[in-house]
C-alpha cells in the first residue's frame, strides 16, 4: 500500500499572521488556596531576613551615630561606657579565628569528601556519610567543652614547639616566651586564636565535607571512565575530572564554612581570653570575635551598650550574608539544571 504525503505550502497569505492561542490556567479554589498559603510561607522566610537586618540596623544607629562610622570601624577598644568603642579588633580577631579554622578544615574536608566519593564503597561509605552528618549535629557546647578540657592541654606543647622553632616568623611569635626556658609557661599559650580556630574547624568540617561530597559525586561517570580508558591512574582521574568538575562545590563549600566560622560563638567564648587589641600572634593568649563579645557583654547592658552590641552584630550579619550570597551564587552557577525536573 502506498501513501503519499502532501506538503502544505505555507505560508499562505492571510494564514501566517495567526496569533498563538493564549493558554489560561485556571486553578480550583482549593489549589488556589494551596498556592497562596505556600507562597505566604515562603514570603515569611524573606520577611524574617529583612526584619533581622532592619531591627539590628535601627537599634545600632544610636551607638554608631554617637561615635561616627569611621571611628566605629577603626577603634580597637570596646568601652561604650566612655563612648570609645569600635570593631577593628573584633573584626580582625573574627577573621583570624575563621581563617585558622579554614586552613585546618579545607585539606581535611577535601580529603574526606574525596575519600567518601572515590575510595570508600558500600558499608564504609554509608557509615562515613552518617558520621559527617552526626558531626554537624553535635551541639557547639560539646565542642567547646572538648576544646576547653582536652584540646587545650594537648595543643599547648605543639604551640610551644611552634613558637620555639618558628618564632622568627612574626605570626608565630609569642611575647614573653623564653625559648631557652626548659619549663615553658603554659599559661601563655592556653587561650590563643590557634586553639579556638582548631575547635571551630571541627565544627565547619562537616558542612564543607558534605557540600564537596555532593558536587564530587555529580561528576559524570562517562568522563571518569573516559579518563580511565585513556590510561589515567585514579589520582589522574581525580585531578583531571573530579576536581575541575567539583570546583564550584569546593569554593562554595569553603565559603559556607567560612560564614559558619565567622559566626561561631560558644566554643570560642569558652576558649579565648578576650583582649581588645589587634593581636596577630596566633599562638599567644588573647583574641576576640564579634560573636563572643556579644555573648560576654550582653548581661551588663544598658540601652546604649546594647545598641553598641547591636552594631557589632550588624557588622557580623552583613559580613556573613555577603559571604553566603557569594557562595550560593557560585554553587548555583556550577550546578545549572538542578531545578529541572528529575
Amino acid at each position, binding site marked *: 500500500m502506498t501513501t503519499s504525503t502532501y506538503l502544505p505550502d505555507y505560508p499562505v497569505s492571510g494564514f501566517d499572521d495567526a496569533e498563538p492561542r493564549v493558554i489560561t490556567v485556571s486553578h480550583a479554589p482549593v489549589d488556589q488556596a*494551596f*498556592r497562596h498559603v*505556600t*507562597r505566604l*510561607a*515562603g514570603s515569611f*522566610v*524573606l520577611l*524574617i*531576613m529583612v526584619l*533581622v537586618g532592619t*531591627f*539590628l540596623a*535601627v537599634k545600632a544607629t544610636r551607638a554608631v551615630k554617637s561615635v561616627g562610622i569611621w571611628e566605629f570601624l577603626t577603634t580597637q577598644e570596646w568601652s561604650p561606657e566612655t563612648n570609645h568603642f569600635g570593631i577593628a579588633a573584633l573584626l580582625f580577631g573574627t577573621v583570624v579565628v575563621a581563617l585558622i579554622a579554614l586552613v585546618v578544615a579545607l585539606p*581535611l*574536608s577535601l*580529603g*574526606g569528601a*574525596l575519600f*567518601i566519593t572515590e*575510595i570508600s564503597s558500600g558499608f564504609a561509605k554509608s557509615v562515613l556519610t552518617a*558520621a559527617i552528618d552526626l*558531626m554537624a*549535629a553535635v*551541639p*557547639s*557546647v*560539646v565542642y*567547646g*567543652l*572538648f576544646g*576547653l578540657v*582536652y584540646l587545650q592541654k594537648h595543643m599547648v606543647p605543639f604551640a610551644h614547639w611552634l613558637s620555639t622553632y618558628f618564632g622568627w616568623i612574626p605570626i608565630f611569635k609569642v611575647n614573653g616566651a623564653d625559648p631557652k626556658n626548659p619549663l615553658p609557661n603554659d599559661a601563655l599559650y592556653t587561650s590563643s586564636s590557634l586553639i579556638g580556630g582548631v575547635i571551630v574547624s*571541627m565544627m565547619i568540617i562537616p558542612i564543607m565535607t558534605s557540600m564537596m561530597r555532593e558536587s564530587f559525586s555529580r561528576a559524570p561517570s562517562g568522563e571518569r571512565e573516559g579518563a580511565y580508558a585513556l590510561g589515567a*591512574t*585514579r*589520582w*589522574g582521574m581525580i585531578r583531571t575530572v573530579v576536581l575541575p568538575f567539583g570546583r564550584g562545590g569546593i569554593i562554595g563549600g569553603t565559603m*559556607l564554612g567560612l560564614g*559558619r566560622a*565567622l*559566626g*561561631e*560563638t*560558644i566554643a570560642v*567564648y*569558652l576558649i579565648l581570653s578576650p583582649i581588645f587589641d589587634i593581636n596577630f600572634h596566633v599562638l599567644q593568649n588573647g583574641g576576640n570575635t564579634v*560573636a563572643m563579645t556579644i*555573648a560576654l557583654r*550582653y548581661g551588663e547592658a544598658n540601652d546604649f551598650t546594647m545598641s553598641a552590641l*547591636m552594631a557589632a*552584630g550588624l557588622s557580623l550579619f552583613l559580613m*556573613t550574608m555577603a*559571604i*553566603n*550570597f557569594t557562595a*550560593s551564587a557560585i554553587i*548555583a552557577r556550577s550546578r545549572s539544571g538542578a531545578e529541572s*525536573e*528529575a
Partner: protein
Amino acid sequence: MSTVPNGGEFIGSTVIPTVHLTPRTSEPERVQFRPPLHQQLALPGAIIGGLAFGLLLGPVLGLIGTGWVPITSFFWMLATYAVLTRLTEDIQAVKDRFSGVMIASAGVVVVAALVLVVLFVLIKAAKILGSIHFSFLTTDMGLTGPLSPLSEGGVKHAIVGTLEQIGIALAISVPLGIASALFLNEIGGRYARLVRTVVEAMTALPSVVAGLFIYASVILLFTKQFNGFAASLAITVLMLPIMIRSADVVLRLVPGNLREAGLALGAGQWSTVRRVVLPTVRSGLTTAIILGTAHGIGETAPVLLTSGVTNNLNFNPFNGPQISMPLAALEFIKSPQPDMRTRGYATAALLLLLVLVLFVIARLIGGQQAGILTNGQLRRRAVRSVRDLARIESNHALIKAQLEERRRFHNPNEGAP
C-alpha cells in the same frame, strides 16, 4: 513459520537469524587481574615499618616525645610506601598511591576527631556516674549552692526548658518549613528561586545574631523580660532554614512522573501534593524534621541572649527566665567549682546522648529511599490491597447487576426464551 535455505526463520516477512553454535557445557575460567603480591603487601609493610620506626625513636631510644610518635610514624610510612612503589612502578603510580594514602588519612582524621569528641564527653560522664544519682534528672538547682555535694541538685529545670522550647519551635517551624519547601518545589518560578537563595544564605545566619534579633524585637518591644518563648522563637529562626533546605532536597527527589500521573488522573495540585507527593517523601521529611530538631536542641548562644539563666524550675515559657540544657551545661562549665564542672560534663553528655538518639532514629527512618518499602509497610499494603480487592469485587458485582438491569430495560426481549 517456515524455514528458509540460509537457516533463518520467517515471522511474517521478517527473517530471524538463528545461531548454529552448540551451547557451552562449562564456562572457561576467567582471567582475573589482581595486583601482584609485592604490590599488595607494600602498604601493610609500610605501615608496620612506620610504626616500628616511630616506636623505636620514641619509647625505645627516647629521642622524641610521645606526641611526635604518630607523626613520625606517618611520614616514615609515607616515605617507605613511596620507595617500595617506585621500585617496581613508574612515577604516575607513585603519585596515585601517595594521593590515595593522603585522602584516606584525611578521612580517618575526620572520623577520628568525631569519635574522640563523642567518646571524650561520654567517658568523662561515665567516670562520674557513680557520684551522680538518678535524682540528677528529677531535681533542679534552686536549693543547691556552689559548694553543695553532687548528690544534691540536678537539671530537671533545664530538661523542662529544653522540651518546652524545642516543642514550641517545632510547632512553628514544621508547618512553615514544609509549606515553604512545597512552595520552592511545587510552585516554583522566579520568586521561588529568590526565596531559595535567601534560605541558603540564612542557613549560615550566626546564631548569636538570631538571639540579638529576638532580643531587639520580641523582648524589647513586647515581653520586656527574658522568657522561654523568646528563646523558642530564636531557635525557630535558626531551625527554619535548615528544615526548608533538607525538605527541599527530599522533595526534589520525587519522580516527576508520579506527579504527572496524579495530574493525569484528574487530581488538582493540592490533591496531588497531599495524596502523591507527601506520602512518597514521608520518611525523608521525618528525617529532615528530626535532624532539624537535633540542631535546634544544641543551640546555646541565642538561648543565652533570650531566655536568661535561672536555677529554678519554670514550667511557664511565657513568663520569667527558663534555662535549657546546653545553656545549663555552659553555666556549669564556666564555674570554677569542680563539682559544678562535673555537673557540666553530665549535662553535656545527656545532651549528646539525646542528639545521638535523635540521629539514630532519623537514620533508621530515612535509610529507606522514596518508593522502596520496608517489610512492615509491604505487609500493611498487602492487607490494604486485599481489603480493596473485596471492595472492588463487590462494586464490580453491583455494576454488573446494574448493567444487566439496564440492558434488560433497553431490550426487554433479549434473553427471553
